[in-house]
């Protein structure tokens, strides 16, 4: 009895330390200006929890989120909070959102949520809001002003008049390459709210914005796109330090537009091809982006993962914890004035698997 107990606790302890050793624990940069202003948070996105029937869910996608939650809980130092970047569900129904929320409930710490299109287009976010609260909001944390937007809205005619059922509307928006979809947007109402929200904020306050879709235009065919991106960027333009984080794209992307640094999140579910690998279309993947490794389909977690964000003097450094790949860190470089991959940014540092075609 005692032996059994001892062995069990040993396994538990050793598993914990193996997990912890695999995590990037040394990445907190030295603080220089005001050490109290530096902090970290975890960023998990795009889990696409998918119901098969009843209480059966697609195992592969469940595992991705369960792993992200377990690893996030091992982080030392403990992150100040956790941001969930949207697309918790695949078809936006209650069983999927409930199941996803149950997995997320194991996280130790405050969780903030971003709305994804897969969470929204069945009931227009009604059940999601019951679980997670407001669809757009802001908060202040250690001198940084955080803004969360619902960027996956679209034209009213598409949302309200086009489809005979809510289920069909959801299914049409769920297909990334479905030509019946519609471009994402933040919309007039939220932009008006954002304008008012930012009016209270000093121009030298660091701003961090979360959206699900990129607040920049990359490839419309897959909705790597926000229709009113320029108008949102214009509202952010007067601030000295702006960082935008987004999900949706299931791949590493980063960019700099004016004063705004953009960084995407990996999915915990599955990776997406870079749009340039679709031979029939033009796309605008930021030149700055060093692409993630091409995924090995035989490792179901390859090219998926989650992020650990270090906010230092108001600038962000994102560490991509890739389940079957070397960890990557993309950090804002104050001298260059844009985000840079810490290892692979120089042309001669790139590796063969980063070539996509």
């Amino acid at each position, binding site marked *: 009895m005692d032996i059994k107990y001892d062995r069990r606790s040993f396994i538990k302890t050793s598993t914990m330390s193996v997990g912890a050793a695999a995590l990037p624990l040394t990445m907190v940069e030295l603080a220089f200006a005001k050490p109290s202003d530096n902090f970290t948070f975890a960023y998990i996105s795009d889990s696409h929890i998918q119901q098969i029937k009843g209480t059966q869910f697609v195992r592969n996608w469940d595992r991705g989120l369960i792993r992200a939650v377990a690893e996030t809980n091992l982080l030392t130092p403990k992150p100040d909070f956790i941001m969930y970047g949207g697309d918790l569900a695949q078809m936006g129904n209650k069983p999927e959102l409930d199941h996803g929320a149950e997995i997320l409930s194991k996280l130790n710490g405050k969780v903030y949520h971003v709305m994804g299109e897969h969470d929204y287009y069945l009931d227009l976010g009604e059940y999601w809001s019951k679980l997670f609260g407001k669809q757009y909001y802001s908060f202040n944390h250690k001198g940084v002003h955080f803004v969360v937007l619902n960027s996956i809205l679209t034209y009213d005619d598409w949302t309200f008049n086009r489809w005979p059922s809510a289920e069909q509307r959801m299914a049409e928006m769920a297909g990334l390459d479905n030509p019946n979809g519609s471009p994402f947007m933040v919309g007039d109402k939220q932009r008006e709210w954002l304008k008012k929200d930012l009016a209270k904020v000093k121009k030298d306050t660091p701003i961090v914005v979360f959206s699900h879709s990129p607040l920049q235009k990359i490839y419309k065919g897959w909705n790597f796109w926000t229709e009113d991106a320029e108008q949102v960027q214009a509202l952010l333009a007067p601030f000295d330090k702006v960082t935008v984080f987004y999900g949706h794209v299931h791949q590493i992307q980063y960019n700099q537009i004016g004063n705004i640094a953009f960084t995407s999140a990996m999915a915990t579910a599955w990776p997406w091809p870079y749009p340039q690998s*679709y*031979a*029939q279309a033009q796309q605008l993947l930021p030149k700055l982006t060093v692409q993630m490794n091409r995924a090995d389909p035989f490792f179901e977690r390859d090219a998926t993962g989650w992020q650990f964000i270090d906010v230092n003097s108001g600038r962000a450094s994102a560490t991509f914890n890739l389940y079957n790949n070397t960890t990557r860190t993309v950090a804002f470089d104050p001298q260059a004035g844009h985000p840079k991959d810490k290892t692979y940014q120089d042309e001669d540092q790139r590796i063969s698997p980063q070539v996509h075609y």
Partner: protein
Amino acid sequence: MKIASVIACAALALSVTGVASADEFTKEDLARWQEQFDGVVKQGRGLWTDSKLGTNGVVCAQCHPNAANTHPETYPKFQKQLGKVANFWEMVNWCIRNPLEGNQLAADDPKMIALISYATWERRGVKLEPGKH
């Protein structure tokens, strides 16, 4: 028997007179062949987004929008995970068995041919590079 021999005679007569040589085809033929191909591509796109292709509702298009990142132009190639030179259909079956948790298809199953037709059509214009990684 009688009908068959009449057809055979007619065919012989045509070839002798040169009315329709085997290497001749008309615009109508071309249009019909294209239509046949397009129909199979369309079926392939249907299967690519069909939640019933596997058993768990996952569809090909979830990971491969517009069949991107499938690279049909690089097959046959050495597939390190299989330890041999493999063809495209073997990788399609890998996906059907694993992420889709489904039953694999025969190489000449009309569904397999439709899936390959669709993926290859989305890759049209890209040069053939068998063996490429």
